[in-house]
Structure formats: C-alpha cells, structure tokens
C-alpha cells in the first residue's frame, strides 16, 4: 500500500474524477481483503471522506463555459434573451 500512501492528498484538493478514481480503487482494495484491520479502518475513513467529497462536488457542480479565441481562453457569458 506504499503507492496509495504516496498518492494520498488532501481530499478537498481532489477533483471529482480524482476522488472517484481513488474511491473505486480503495473499495476494490478493501474487497480484496488483504489489509491489516487498522489499515482497513483507515481506508474506510478515507473512503467515506472521498464519497462525501464526490457528493459535494456533484451538488455544487456548475457548467463552466469558456470561449477560445486565438488560443486564449476567456469566460463565456451567455446572451440572455
């Protein structure tokens, strides 16, 4: 599990995809059932936090629209009618 340790980052810095990918990997690792109990409980705690992070990101998601002009990105304001 050295790999997971080195990848472990503060959860509120993770993007949705990162959090979800880690959560999926973590659940799979748990299901393979080869972790010492203490480690498994740590994984569970992190998993819960990851799931909460995913849920919060989904709740808060707002489509971000940018406009590309000559290789420059600027926020795009939709015209309202």
């Amino acid at each position: 599990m050295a790999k997971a340790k080195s990848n472990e980052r503060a959860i509120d810095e993770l993007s949705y995809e990162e959090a979800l990918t880690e959560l999926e990997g973590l659940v799979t690792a748990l299901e393979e059932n080869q972790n010492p109990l203490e480690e498994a409980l740590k994984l569970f705690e992190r998993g819960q936090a990851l799931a909460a992070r995913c849920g919060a990101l989904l709740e808060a998601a707002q489509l971000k629209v940018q406009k590309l002009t000559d290789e420059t990105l600027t926020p795009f304001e939709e015209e309202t009618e």
Partner: protein
Amino acid sequence: MQTALFPSAPLTVSQLTFHIRKRLEDDPALREVWVQGEISNLAHPNSGHLYFTLKDKNAALRCVMWKLDAARLRFNLQDGLAVEAHGKIAVYEPQGQYQLVVNLLQPKGEGALYQEFLRLKAMLEAEGLFDVERKRPIPELPQTIGLVTSQTGAALRDMLNTLRRRLPLARVILAPSAVQGAEAPPALVKALQTLNQQNPDVILLARGGGSIEDLWGFNDERVVRAVAASQTPVICGVGHETDFTLCDFVADLRAPTPTAAAELATQITLDDLHTQVAYLSSRLATQTLGLLAEQKAFVAALAARLKYISPERRIQTESQKLDELSRRAGSALIHRIQLQAARVHGITKRLHALNPTAVLARGYAIITSQESGRVISKVAQAKGAMQARVSDGEFEVKRI
C-alpha cells in the same frame, strides 16, 4: 397536299387525345426530364397537390406535384422562385393539356451542388475517410467538451442547456465559428485546429437547421479533412434529422441535432454519478462492517483457544495437584503421629507397671547403702549406715 374526297370515319376527341397521350408518354426522352424555370401561378389547394407553371422568357409549362412528393419539399415555394424540376410529361385528357408531373423539386443550382456533393463523397469514401474502423469511441464521462458552432445560434443555447442539465461537472470550451457562407469552411477548420490544442475529451461540431445552402460549409472538403485530422473524437450534429452532410460521414459519431450531439457526449449523467457514489459508499460500508465482524469472530476464536492453553489453567491444575499432595501428605503425617502416640501410650503403661514406687505402696522398702548409694539386695551387703525408702519417704536404718 390534297384532302381525300372520301375521308375515313373521323376520330373522336377522346381517341385522338389518347393517341397524342400515348405518343407523348411513350417517348423515353419525356419520361425522365430535368427542367429549370421560374415558378408562377402557384396554387396549393386543400387536396395537398401543388399546381404551378414553370416559365422562362419564351415558354410556359404546366406542372403538377402530387401530395406525397409535395410533402417531401424542404423549402417554401413561391412565385418567381427559380427551380429545377424533375418528372415526366403526361397528358391531362379532360383539358387536352400536357403537363409535367413533378416528383423532385429543388432550388436552382442545387442540382450542381448535389453533383459536387456526390463526387466529393465518392472521392473521400475511396480514400477511406468514412471507414468504420476510423471511428473512435466517445468517452463516456468527458471532463472537457469542445464546441465548434456559432456563438449566437440556437444550437449553442440548446447544447449548453443540455450539458448543464446532464453533466454540469464538465468544462466547456467554445471555439466560435461562422457556420454558413463562404467564410464558414476556413473558420470551421481553424476552430477545430485551435480546439484540438486544448486537448478536450470530445468535440461537438454543430449547427442548427437551415437550407441546404446554409449547411453547405459542412460538405466542404477542407472541413471534412479537418474533422478527419482531429486528435479528439468528433460528434457531428448539423441541421435536422433528415440532413446529411459529409461531416456526418467523417465524424466519429453522427447526431441528428445539436441537442442530440450534447446528449451523446454525456452518456453518463449527474444522476448516474450520484448513483455511482452511493453504490461505492454502500460497498465501502458493507465491506468494512463485514471485515470488522470477521475480525471480531476471529479474535473471539483466538481468545477461546488462548483460554484453553493459558497458564492460568496450568496454575489451577498445579495448585489442585498441590492441594491433593498436601492433603495426602497431611494424612500420612497424622497417621504416623497417631501411631507414635499409641506406641508412647503403650510404653508408658508398661513403664508404669515397672515403677518401683508402686511396690513400695504395697509395704515393701528399698534399702540403699548411704556410702555407695547402691541397693542392698543381699545380707552380706547390709553394713554401715543405710537408707530405707518407703512409699511416702525415707529414713535411716542400722543393722543390729
């Protein structure tokens, strides 16, 4: 030329008209006709059939378009419109009129466009640009979605609404482009290229409905090749359901409309993601609770085993042994003591029997020499001062 004196019996009008009709309708050159002209006297009665006259400077041609063919028209007819009509010449006997029965009608010039379309399509197809093997899969959950469309069209609004509803998690990069007119092809090519540099997960190439000329930019060879060259999979959603452009053929996926393109780009929606997170959460909880229960059972089993082999148990066993031993040791000792006591008692009794003082009580006396202290048991020994001992004391005796 002289008229016959005795003409044969005259034909009826019907017979003659039938004859003319047969001549006209049997003529192969009149069965498949393309003719161009300007529409006039347009009439569309309730029957759904269309009646009009095609004219040029010197001639007019009556035309009819039956309801079923008329329903397929994709543009509005009006007097004065230059068109190309395809059909066959027929005779309407009640009026004695010949007319063109039109089955295809298109704005003038479209025929040439269509020929160009077919030529280009055949060429690009031969190059393999439309091969199924070239089609790339569309990512199910794109993080970045590129849009190539008009900045002001309804297509953009429809797509953004759809994306916002289905996958607000996504980031959208709009590369605005002209989508009709001569400036459209180079603008579309440039938008596709600059958008590719941003490395989106999927590109939507879209435009709302319009006339075939309006959509023509999406049949331009430059645009088709730019779509083929795109590093990013492209979904093409141009016009309506029935519109097919070369971009539809070359794109990795064809969508009937811009909205459908946005839907196809978001196969996994926000709802799916919520479900997925909930599912993972429950798997996590189930797994952890299961693991805990398992560990508890394991610990309980170990504890039971530990109890069995614990030193406490040995200590108890040993202590019991010790008790047993000491019990046995104790009783052995008591036995011996009792034995000894019995012996002592016996000996005491015997000793008691031997006590000389008991004899004195019966009237005997013990005489001892005062000099030597020895018991006088023979006459010869009785001399000098002697001591007589009786049951209650002593006194001095002399031999007389």
